[in-house]
């Protein structure tokens, strides 16, 4: 047997000294307690999880425990954790980390997360898992602290880079790992050079689009698992975009990736009750919308038809949003086109009411409970806050650009003091608002993934009641068409996030937003546009195989 056995000598040396000096000797009770403590801490078996015993105040869901077991016992501690949004990837990572630490297999741990999440991770590891994680602030932290949380952007920069690459990490955890899909980036190269025994890559969107992205991610975790670059191409690549031997590749990837889907978890998810609310424009609003639509025909806009689309969408949101865009346009072109733009700006002043805002107000009053209003535009956000305040409704703003502490504060205010949270698009990520049950999609993003992220803030584990989603659709505008396509024809709300994600990836439709813009811009007639939209819908529906699953209530609610 060529197994190395090490006998640690610390005790015997100290013991020798005490023999020489005749003590000091401990009491029998303390001696017994010391042995008992070690018996409690000893790990009885290679397999199984010890961590749940150490975390009695946390209730783990069955799939989370299963993930931890699989990663440790079958994947040897190198895995891509790719559960769908809301299933608790952070919890899984914390559980695995804790297990390795209890077993003494991990002491030095590095956790790389987006800068905005550093404090959240640090807090959760300390409070939930009793892992003494430290947010990296000073450069001595790298060497002196055992568990360090940092952003990858900090870690990869000098003087940190050299220090970090010099550490021997037992475990490296990387959140939002899909950002490492490109091997020609500094981030990728940095992670590749880290000395790491165990490694967890967390992502909700693992196989986003290109073939080489999955190759790069897996090769970071376990180089060679998908072969060398050359072999991989030979074995799996058909051409630029498509794969062959897909089943085999899937099998290989599944050896290093765990992915739970909501419906497989067997958890009882709150119901989603979706309602589309038609908005009728007032006369003055309609006039503005038509005026903007006509801009498309002008030579001035020939090369920027996209901005007309934007203006149309903004006209459905608020005159403030519209005005801001026109003003910026004017400034950017240094006054050129003023003869066209200024009259439109003047027309904006003739708009007497905001029909959507009025509907929002009525709906919020009717709900009489916490409501999140999502809008795409900051100008609308500001206007709404003012408007609601005029009618005695308290609201707090929320934006992606807020610092973490401000986000937390706004969440706190929303929970305790305000009835309404008004969020712009980017405000959706990284924050849990499951104490709220109502979302108003004041205007809708054209990318279905983003709407899922919005809903994901409240439709998650921990939500006690049903989730109500109200989609506003301004009649006879492009907005109504989009709502019809994305949210009625594709049955978005009946599908689940992971599915949609994979389907969009499969069809290279990640950029569905520009695809839709394209249809809007380049269709000569209403009829042509309708045909193209129908084609897109059936492509996603049929080929993508979205099936109607769960949440049947939705259909009923929509039809009523």
């Amino acid at each position, binding site marked *: *047997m060529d*197994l*190395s*056995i*090490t*006998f*640690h000598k*610390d*005790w*015997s040396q*100290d*013991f*020798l000294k005490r*023999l020489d000096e005749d*003590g*000091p*000797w*401990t*009491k*029998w*009770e*303390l*001696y*017994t*307690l*010391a*042995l*008992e*403590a*070690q018996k*409690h801490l*000893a*790990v*009885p078996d*290679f*397999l199984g999880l010890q961590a749940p*015993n*150490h975390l*009695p*105040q946390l209730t783990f869901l069955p799939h989370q425990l299963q993930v931890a077991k699989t990663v440790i*016992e079958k994947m*040897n*501690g190198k895995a891509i954790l790719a559960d769908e949004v809301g299933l608790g990837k952070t919890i899984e990572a914390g559980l695995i980390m804790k297990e390795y630490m209890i*077993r*003494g*297999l991990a002491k030095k741990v590095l956790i790389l997360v987006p800068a905005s999440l550093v404090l959240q991770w640090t807090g959760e590891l300390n409070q939930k898992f*009793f892992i*003494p994680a430290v947010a990296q602030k000073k450069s001595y932290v790298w060497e002196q602290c055992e568990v360090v949380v940092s952003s990858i952007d900090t870690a990869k920069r000098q003087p940190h880079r050299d220090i970090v690459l010099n550490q*021997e990490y037992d475990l490296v955890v990387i959140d939002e790992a899909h950002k490492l899909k490109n091997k020609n980036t500094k981030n990728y190269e940095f992670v*590749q*050079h880290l*000395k*790491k*025994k165990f490694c967890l890559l967390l992502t909700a969107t693992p196989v986003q689009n290109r073939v080489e992205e999955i190759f790069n991610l897996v*090769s970071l975790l376990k*180089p*060679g*698992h998908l*072969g*060398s670059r050359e072999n991989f191409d030979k074995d799996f690549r058909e051409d630029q975009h498509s794969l062959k031997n897909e089943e085999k590749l899937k099998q290989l990837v599944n050896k290093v990736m765990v992915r739970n889907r909501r419906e497989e978890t067997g958890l009882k998810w709150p119901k989603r009750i979706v309602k589309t609310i038609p908005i009728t424009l007032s006369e003055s609003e309609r006039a503005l919308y038509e005026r903007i639509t006509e801009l498309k025909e002008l030579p001035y806009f020939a090369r920027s038809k996209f901005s007309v689309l934007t203006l149309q969408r903004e006209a459905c949101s608020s005159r403030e949003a519209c005005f801001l865009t026109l003003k910026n346009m004017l400034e950017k072109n240094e006054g050129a086109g003023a003869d066209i733009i200024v009259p439109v700006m003047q027309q904006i002043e003739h708009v007497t009411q905001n029909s959507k805002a009025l509907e929002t107000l009525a709906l919020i009053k009717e709900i009489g409970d916490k409501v999140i209003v999502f809008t795409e535009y900051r100008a609308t956000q500001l206007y709404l806050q003012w408007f609601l305040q005029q009618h005695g409704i308290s609201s707090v703003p929320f934006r992606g650009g807020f610092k973490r502490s401000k986000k937390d504060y706004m969440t706190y205010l929303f929970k305790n003091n305000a009835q309404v949270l008004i969020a712009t698009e980017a405000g959706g990520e990284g924050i849990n608002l499951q104490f709220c049950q109502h979302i108003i999609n004041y205007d809708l993003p054209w990318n279905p993934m983003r709407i899922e992220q919005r809903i994901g803030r409240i439709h998650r584990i921990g939500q006690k009641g049903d989730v109500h989603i109200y989609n506003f659709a301004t009649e006879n505008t492009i907005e109504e068409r989009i709502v019809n396509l994305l949210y009625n024809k594709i049955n978005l709300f009946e599908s689940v996030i992971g599915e949609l994600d994979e389907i969009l990836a499969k069809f290279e439709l990640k950029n569905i937003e520009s695809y839709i813009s394209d249809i809007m811009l380049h269709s000569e007639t209403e009829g042509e546009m309708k045909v193209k939209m129908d084609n897109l819908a059936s492509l996603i529906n049929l080929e993508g195989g979205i099936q109607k699953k769960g949440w049947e209530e939705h259909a009923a609610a929509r039809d009523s």
Partner: protein
Amino acid sequence: MQQHEIHDFLERYFEANDCEVLERRPASMKIKLSIEIDKLLMNRPFYWHYLEKTGGTPQPMTLSLATGQQAGDGTEEFIHFGSPRLHQIFASTQKLGSFIRMYEKVEHHNGSNIALHPWLCVNMKTSYMCDQKKDRITSHGIHLINGTILDQFHERLQQRPLSRSIPDYCYTLSPFIKPMSGLKRIESLIEEQISCDDHTWADDARRRWQEDQELLDRFYEDQAQKPECYEVEKEALRTQYEPRIEVTCINGGLFYLSDSFPST
């Protein structure tokens, strides 16, 4: 470890360390710490340094601990198996309870003096490590005159009344075997026992290591001059998988026992 076991453990710990139990309830306790335990647990070296410099009256802190099924009203520190405080206390037992010397309390009969035999006892933790890990705790004692080695030694000791000082009318026999040689003999025995163990776990770990190494080699097969990444990863695979066994001594010491030991 169940909550009632924790409660019991803590109570014994504080009492053994001369801390005053101010309040004792089924699921909570209030403890006035001793100076020594305050220094070990409360992490306030500046206070103690200041006190020593100024010669003030020491004010050790009071701990209120909740040991029920859930956290109390917030005035008490909730102790459960994962709480840092318990692990701090566990760790402190290593400092406080590592070395011992005890004598068997022998019933004295007919006037003749009683000889006590020297034994060395060590409680060891053997850790089997690769990318997975398991521990085994053993307790061995060696008779330092005739070299007899017994296992389950701690359990055997628990059957005997022991005293910190030598009982009246007793005397100790001098060891022939030095304690350090005794320890070496126990280590050899453990080594021997380990070699007879089933080591499928180590073979499995080596196989996993081999597999990953082959993948790594394949990844870089086209490159005659292997890049730095290759070496970093190769070394990481070794530290991840290489099976190894580590034996550490938890605690131990000398026990002077009557010749009726181990059988009664």
